[in-house]
């Protein structure tokens, strides 16, 4: 019994370290994303690079860990690079897309690429909904087609990248118990 709790504690320390690493990874991706000009006349459109890190946490550790990393990521990068207004805005998109990805993963169990596509789509839909709520004008929905196409493409791209990375790092993180 004591042996088991010790083992669990050892795992949780490992986990904590890796979650911190993924949080840093997600924040760097947020910063890199802000450097890449990706703007085609539609507000709320993003490449979604940090989602790659969140997807990896979701697939390696689980939904709760991914949600926590996601929320901390949005708040920290928001405080460093933007303002409170943007934090609220991106938090809405981030949580909305995360819940969508988690539910899709839980109930349909598709591959990570499909989960990522839904993440991209829902992120854009979430931000659009937030924009509609803030400016109280339903015509913002005019951007929906562009946002859907962009969300699909970026989601697929991020999904493929995450899959390739996970193939290589997941065995290392999960099975290496003798550290």
């Amino acid at each position, binding site marked *: 019994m004591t042996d088991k709790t010790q083992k669990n504690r050892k795992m949780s320390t490992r986990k904590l370290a890796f979650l911190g690493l993924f949080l840093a990874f997600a924040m760097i991706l947020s910063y890199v994303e802000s450097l890449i000009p990706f703007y085609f*006349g539609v*507000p709320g459109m993003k490449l979604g690079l940090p989602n790659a890190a969140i997807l990896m946490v979701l697939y390696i550790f689980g939904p709760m860990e991914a949600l926590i990393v996601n929320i901390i990521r949005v708040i920290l990068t928001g405080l460093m690079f933007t303002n409170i*207004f943007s934090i609220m805005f991106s938090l809405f998109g981030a949580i909305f897309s995360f819940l969508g990805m988690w539910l899709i993963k839980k109930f349909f169990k*598709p*591959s990570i690429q*499909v989960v990522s596509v*839904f993440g991209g789509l829902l992120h854009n839909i979430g931000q659009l909904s937030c924009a509609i709520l803030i*400016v109280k004008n339903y015509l913002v929905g005019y951007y929906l087609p562009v946002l859907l*196409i962009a969300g699909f493409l970026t989601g697929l791209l991020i999904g493929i990248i995450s899959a390739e990375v996970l193939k290589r790092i997941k065995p290392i993180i999960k*099975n290496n118990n003798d550290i």
Partner: protein
Amino acid sequence: MEKSDNNSVTENTDFTMKPRDTIILTVVLVIIAVVVLVFYMIKQNGSYAEITVDGELFGTYSLNEDQEIPITDSDGNVTNTAEIKDGKIFMLEATCPDKLCIKQGKKNDANSEIVCLPNRVVISVKSGDKKADYDTVAQ
């Protein structure tokens, strides 16, 4: 011991796409195509622009006459300047830091918009000719 650590690993051992995933993606793509098509079909040219600040109507302006419109906030400060030229409306100047509203370019499709979120200014192009001219006078 090792099994209890790996309980979440079993459902997705490799990360390649299965035929089922391709089908799901195709269905999603078809749904998106339908939405885009519907949006494209209901698109038409607008005749007047409606400007709202913080959700409240600031004024309506006909797209047929060239003009410059200073947009003020509730304190009376000019936050944005819109211009109508050749039947199209665009943001000329803005006090917001990102200038995204200026980058949104010229608009003349019905239901298209220029949004300046920091200043909460929305310019929406509308079709039909109701009361566009009267409100220009009232402004």
